[in-house]
């Protein structure tokens, strides 16, 4: 795909992040191959968002190393930032602006000319079925519309790597299916996707590989089938429960499916 051949999109060793008394990350190792959809699965507070923030160069790790698309997260920030896109819980849109204006602003900030960012905004609004709401402030958007625009904003310039932080949390089933299908299309076009989720079904359906994360550590990693075999359990729910001891997580997954 690029100078790193078929190398790794993400490579992390022993990532540590401490907030006060809490070790949010307690030695995370990750290897995500280019072109994969990689699922980062875990309950609330497991360290999923912190990991993405470090990989997107928004937060500095307190320990460990990470390379994204071949660039070090501490020394290659500009290189990484120009090749990745972040969307989800913590990185969001400008509520006061319309959908169209949001896309044009991000297009300009991505280095597109005025004309190109307007054209791109129109294309994305059409593709995401948002033309009818393009002129309305994002504040009034439904959760599904918002997330579609959010993902659209991450595709203004097709990224090599897309971070999706809990892309379907709080969504109705129909919007959830829409987002899943979008993620598949994005991955099929060659973008590596790293998504976090609390929903087992989401990881099971979308991800080529899954890392189960709990208390800032990777509890298990592999394909969905491997994880099931590893614990000798029939469903991913049981795997999740066996690994994290979190019945609440399993409940949420039930609710999501």
């Amino acid at each position: 795909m690029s100078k790193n051949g078929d190398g790794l999109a993400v490579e992390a060793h022993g990532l540590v992040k401490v907030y006060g008394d809490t070790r949010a990350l307690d030695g995370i190792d990750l290897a995500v191959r280019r072109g994969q959809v990689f699922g980062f699965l875990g309950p609330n507070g497991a360290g999923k968002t912190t990991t993405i923030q470090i990989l997107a160069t928004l937060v500095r790790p307190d320990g460990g190393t990470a390379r994204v698309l071949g660039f070090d997260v501490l020394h290659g920030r500009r290189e990484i930032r120009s090749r990745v896109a972040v969307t989800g819980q913590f990185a969001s849109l400008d509520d006061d602006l319309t959908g169209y204006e949001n896309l044009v602003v991000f297009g300009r900030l991505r280095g597109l000319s005025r004309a190109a960012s307007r054209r791109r905004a129109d294309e994305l609004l059409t593709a995401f079925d948002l033309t009818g709401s393009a002129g309305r402030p994002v504040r009034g958007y439904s959760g599904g519309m918002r997330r579609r625009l959010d993902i659209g904003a991450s595709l203004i310039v097709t990224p090599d790597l897309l971070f999706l932080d809990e892309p379907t949390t709080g969504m109705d089933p129909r919007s959830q299916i829409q987002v899943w299908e979008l993620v598949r299309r994005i991955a099929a076009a060659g973008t590596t996707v790293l998504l976090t989720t609390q929903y087992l079904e989401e990881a099971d359906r979308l991800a080529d590989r899954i890392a189960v994360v709990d208390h800032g550590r990777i509890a298990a990693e592999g394909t969905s089938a491997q994880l099931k075999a590893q614990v000798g359990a029939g469903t991913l729910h049981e795997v999740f429960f066996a690994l994290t001891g979190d019945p609440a997580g399993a409940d949420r997954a039930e609710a999501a499916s």
Partner: protein
Amino acid sequence: MSVTDSRDVPEADRLGGLLAPAGPPRRAGALAATATFGWRAMLKIKHEPKQLVDVVAIPVVFTVLFTYVFGGALGGTPGEYLRTLLPGTLVMGVVSCTMYGGARLAQDVTTGVFDRFRALPVWRGALVLGGLLGDAGRYLIAASISVALGVAIGYRPDGGVPGVVAGVALVIAFGLALSWLWAAVALLVRDPATVMSLGLAVLMPPTFASNIFVQPRTMPGWLRAFVEVNPISHVADAARGLMNGTGGAAPVAWSLAATAAITLVFAPVALHLYARRA
């Protein structure tokens, strides 16, 4: 499952051609990024015109009130008094909305959109500087309303168009110096409501304890001393001189010195505080 999924997702089919490889990554230059953030600030003013209520109300209320209620007593006739008052309420109108940009910045750095901005490969000062461009737009609106209202009720600036333009430019420059101050405050307190109330509390006293409404001749000595060093008085004097075509260079020089001093102190502080977060 994919059959059901695809039928439900028309946009996924339209996405294909849009995901072409982007080629070598591009970057927005510092100027383009700053201009974009400035445009965004102006869009926010456009979408929330209610934030202009104060910007419009303060110069209008104080100009009309003081001209007709106190004008005769203070300046001989309302028309005479307007020559002194109007450049002053222009200063007041601009100064009293200088904290809005800070409040915006406090809101920006505490919401999710800030993370999205930070994740972009753009010069990090662009958000703050772009915000100042938005402030300049807001000050220009406040100033235009003051001048238009003044002319409507009988103010005739003898300095002509060049004098008015120079006066307005000087006042806006002073406003932008205060923008830096409020940007620094905003990055410290990180709460829009706190920035707004601090703004009112801090700006109101020196606005009245100035020569905007009355000359300090009748004030007690300690207050007169304050009024005479108050930069707002100098800026008001400079604006009067330029707009009425009567001024000497001294008030203009003092105003520019105050503008430069405030900027030189607070711009580095604001940018430093911002860099820590970006």
